[in-house]
């Protein structure tokens, strides 16, 4: 069974440019998460979806970040415009039942803003 797939793996952009990350969760997993992980720190939740509904986006910087999960499957996270402080690894994860089960993480996208 394929795991959580993310692309691209690496992205280097100049500040003020837009960037988008894509995530394909494990088939059948209704819950999808986007996390941001800075070097040496734990993952920080940005947004959580149940199917196509964003049920927790309280930590998403909405002035520059947006996300969507059309049809409740794939998801895209966008930053526009990017700032130097956005450099981090962006992780996508999915779960069958977040309250009793595990979350499966993708390999992440390492974003460098220069």
């Amino acid at each position, binding site marked *: 069974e394929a795991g959580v797939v993310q692309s691209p793996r690496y992205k280097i952009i100049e500040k003020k440019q837009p960037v988008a990350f894509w995530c394909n969760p494990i088939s059948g997993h209704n819950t999808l998460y986007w996390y941001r992980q800075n070097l040496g720190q*734990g993952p920080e*939740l940005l947004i959580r979806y149940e199917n196509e509904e964003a049920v*927790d986006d309280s930590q998403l910087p909405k002035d520059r970040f947006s996300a969507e999960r059309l049809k409740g499957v794939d998801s895209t996270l966008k930053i526009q415009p990017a700032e130097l402080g956005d450099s981090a690894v962006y992780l996508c994860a999915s779960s069958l039942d*977040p*309250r*009793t089960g*595990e*979350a499966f*993480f993708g390999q*992440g996208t390492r974003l460098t803003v220069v």
Partner: protein
Amino acid sequence: QQPVQSPQAVILREGEDAVINCSSSKALYSVHWYRQKHGEAPIFLMILLKGGEQKGHDKISASFNEKKQQSSLYLTASQLSYSGTYFCGTEDYGQNFVFGPGTRLSVLP
């Protein structure tokens, strides 16, 4: 609110034991444990749902003291493959989930 993990880092020799602690200021519904190797995705180890619950996974086990809002991860007879950063994640009764800052474990031959 982010849970507190201790120690921040630990170095072991193969075969030695280690304990990693995770504590929260909030009442917890569950505690999750993950391990992440450098440059890789976090991998789920276990979830503890009930106060006092203990679970095991090979030579890695964990306990959850709901009253104290704490969980501990026990690694016995550590192997080289145990090296990595261990994160606890805590969920409160409002379904708010947050990862701790991590504990870096290095197992030396």
